[in-house]
């Protein structure tokens, strides 16, 4: 009997549940079915956010054209001073608070680090570190959401409403959808934290944490795109 076959017999005698906790047996592809399913889901999410970002860019270009032409219909909800600022800048740049959004971006990037550290901790059966990093990730995500709520409130008071013009609709839909995704991720993290406090989160469930991590990093990646395309490029 070869060494490989001996290993096979050993593993065959193990309860199937041990493998299932990792998301099932490996496939001939080399990835577990759960991980592949998550990647396919994230692929579909790429299409969703791709469409939202494209819509935003098109509506922004149209909005700027209308503002430069002095069309009062598209800026009826905004104060005249802001309209003048738009015309002077030739872009929607006067709206954004770049230092504030940069801080939000940094917070979300940091949450990606704490997420991978949580996955590493659970892989190494480090219970305390797992709880600390999961809680830190959820807290950083919540801080990001709080910042987004503050930002939305400020924009609304400045006159950028959801139904005022297509630009406002596209902006709130894009960033709002992202915020909803972050909120969903926070719920997943809190669920994992709950399981961890019940003492049932260990290395046998490392892939579950990795799957939540994949989702969380994807949300972070989407923000990397939004931050540059929406906020930094005028």
């Amino acid at each position, binding site marked *: 009997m070869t060494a*490989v*076959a001996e*290993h*096979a*017999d050993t*593993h*065959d005698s193990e309860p199937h549940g041990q*493998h299932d906790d*990792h998301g099932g*047996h*490996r*496939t*001939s*592809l*080399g*990835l*577990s079915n759960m*991980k592949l399913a998550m990647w396919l889901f994230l*692929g579909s999410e*790429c299409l969703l956010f*791709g469409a939202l970002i*494209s819509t935003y*860019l*098109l509506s922004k*270009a149209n909005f700027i054209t209308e503002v430069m032409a002095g069309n009062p219909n598209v800026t009826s909800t905004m104060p005249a001073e802001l309209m003048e600022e738009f015309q002077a800048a030739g872009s929607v740049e006067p709206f954004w608070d*770049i*230092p504030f959004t*940069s801080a939000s*971006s*940094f917070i979300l*990037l*940091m949450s*990606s*680090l704490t*997420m*991978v*550290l949580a996955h*590493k901790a659970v*892989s190494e059966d480090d219970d305390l570190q797992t709880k600390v990093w999961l809680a830190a990730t959820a807290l950083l995500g919540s801080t990001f959401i709080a910042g987004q709520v503050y930002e939305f409130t400020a924009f609304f008071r400045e006159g950028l409403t959801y139904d005022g013009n297509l630009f406002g609709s596209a902006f709130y839909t894009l960033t709002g959808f992202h915020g909803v995704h972050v909120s969903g991720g926070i719920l997943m993290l809190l669920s994992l934290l709950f399981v961890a406090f019940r003492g049932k989160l260990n290395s046998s469930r*490392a892939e579950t944490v*990795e799957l939540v*991590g*994949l989702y969380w*990093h*994807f949300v*972070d*990646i989407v923000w*990397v*795109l939004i*931050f*540059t*395309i929406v906020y*930094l*490029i*005028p």
Partner: protein
Amino acid sequence: MAESIVTTEAVHGEHDDHAHHPTERQYWVVFVALAVLTAIEVAWSYAGLEGAALVVPLLAMMAVKFLLVAGAFMHLYFDLKIINGRIFTWAFGFSLLLAVIVYLVVFAAFDLLPF
């Protein structure tokens, strides 16, 4: 027996998967790189540049950040090494290329490209 060997290789592959993930130090290095790139992006946006001189470097830095998060944090760089079968890799790469081309065509159609 053949089935057993396949199962064993799969299980070992799983352990190797975790073993090939980055170390904690490497995660911190990636995070610092992301933070520095974000700072450069913000500084670049305040540099008073216009057109392609402003947009192209910003998009390049965005792409690097995208690849760093996907490659290191999402383990894509490491998982691609263990995925069996070139067909999947090619299909994934072709789909990604197709998506990029479609978006570029749409943006070009609406005159949204900076060049």
